[in-house]
């Protein structure tokens, strides 16, 4: 009998999907789920790579979220992430000018200052809410800074941004449409300012960038600014929050990092692999395709389960299920694969590296003091809240 798992439900991803992923990789690697109008779940590394690198056969135009049972059609004004070739390449080349290693590395001092500012509010020995209260502040501020929003607008920006992606505290009286509208007005103001006076921020760069004589239209620019918030916030927050939990669960590896911070970049790659903060992205077959004896029909949805591919024994060996910060090589697919692979990956890596560098330089003990509350999402099932107590390296000696 074919295995049967609720791949369409958040609880599947919030629990430990490891055993189900293993079963699927071995017994039904191209797996039909009939829920939500039906979709194929892809769990093997090689297959995720195969599909991700063939955008002509597997399109993003109908959207990258898993099917929800409602009919899908292509967005008449697509964002970068839902654009197919050849248009995608032109848009991406234009936008990626703002995300080259040179540009991103140059942001390190700002990133560090933002991280320090946030961590300054955490006292050793006193319980804090870590996910919402500390970690989440970092990516929003960095995106606000990237867009050239003045610091006094950051808190407002964060409220709108949280509400517009539906992650705000239910107690906050702001609907996602209202927040989306407020943000749109705010972006329009930032663009209008740059129209009069260019600076060296991302918006100015995107306004001036041209590929083959074409620049981004006003609508495309707006759509991209919204995409940045959706793509860059909760993903990074969850990498750091769930990565911290992985370290709490592996105290010997936490100790290794405290003793030798040069291991942090490799540890972040392992967090990316083991957590896979973005569980999946979806593609749509443009013709009938045979894969491992199954026929994927034209128009059907194909869900690339990165978390499953990232534990494939064929690539990561016998220890694929284990968390091991010394793993090398680590060619995980947490940032996707093919031409839609994450545009912000250098920035996400920089943010996570600086965060853990600063965190572990101040605190060498991290302790959960209560339950971890998860977000009920199939795509980014991260941490809503987690309370921790941080212990300072030298507080026992009374130095602080």
């Amino acid at each position, binding site marked *: 009998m074919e295995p049967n798992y609720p791949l369409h439900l958040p609880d599947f991803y919030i629990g430990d999907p490891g055993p189900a992923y293993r079963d699927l990789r071995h017994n039904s690697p191209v797996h039909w789920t009939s829920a939500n109008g039906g979709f194929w779940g892809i769990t093997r590394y090689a297959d995720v790579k195969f599909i991700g690198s063939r955008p002509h056969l597997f399109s993003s135009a109908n959207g990258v979220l898993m099917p929800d049972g409602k009919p899908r059609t292509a967005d008449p004004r697509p964002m970068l992430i839902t654009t197919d070739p050849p248009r995608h390449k032109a848009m*991406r080349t234009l936008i990626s000018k703002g995300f*080259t290693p*040179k540009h991103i590395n140059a942001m390190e001092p700002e990133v560090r200052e933002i991280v320090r500012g946030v961590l300054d509010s955490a006292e050793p020995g006193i319980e804090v809410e870590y996910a919402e209260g500390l970690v989440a502040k970092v990516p929003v501020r960095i995106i606000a800074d990237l867009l050239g929003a003045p610091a006094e607008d950051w808190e407002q920006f964060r409220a709108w941004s949280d509400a517009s992606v539906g992650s705000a505290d239910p107690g906050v009286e702001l609907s996602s449409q209202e927040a989306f509208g407020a943000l749109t007005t705010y972006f329009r103001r930032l663009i209008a300012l740059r129209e009069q006076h260019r600076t060296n921020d991302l918006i100015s760069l995107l306004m001036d960038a041209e590929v083959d004589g074409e620049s981004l239209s006003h609508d495309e620019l707006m759509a991209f600014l919204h995409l940045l918030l959706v793509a860059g916030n909760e993903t990074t927050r969850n990498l750091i929050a769930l990565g911290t939990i992985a370290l709490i669960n592996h105290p010997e590896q936490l100790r290794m990092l405290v003793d030798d911070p040069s291991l942090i970049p490799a540890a972040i790659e392992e967090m990316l692999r083991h957590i896979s903060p973005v569980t999946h992205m979806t593609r749509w077959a443009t013709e009938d395709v045979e894969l491992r004896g199954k026929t994927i029909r034209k128009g059907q949805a194909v869900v690339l389960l990165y978390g499953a591919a990232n534990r494939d024994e064929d690539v990561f060996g016998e220890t694929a299920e284990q968390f091991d910060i010394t793993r090398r090589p680590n060619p995980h697919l947490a940032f996707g694969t093919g031409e839609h692979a994450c545009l912000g990956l250098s920035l996400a890596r920089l943010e996570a590296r600086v965060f853990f560098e600063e965190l572990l330089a101040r605190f060498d003990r991290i302790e959960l003091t209560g339950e971890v509350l998860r977000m009920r999402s199939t795509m980014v099932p991260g941490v809503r809240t987690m309370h921790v107590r941080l212990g300072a390296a030298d507080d026992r000696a009374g130095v602080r």
Partner: protein
Amino acid sequence: MRIVLDRARCTGIGICESFAPTVFEVDDNGELVVLSAEVPEGALDEVTAAVEGCPALALRLEP
């Protein structure tokens, strides 16, 4: 070993540069410049990491 770039696939975000900055550089126009057509002495590991790390599958090594 020769480094072959498929420019039609490259999106210029420079993952390759982060692995092997002596060989790859994205210029200010967002175009990838391959600074050395041959893999330099002693740089095979980092160039291989760059080739494997390219998400757009735009890089290849040829004998």
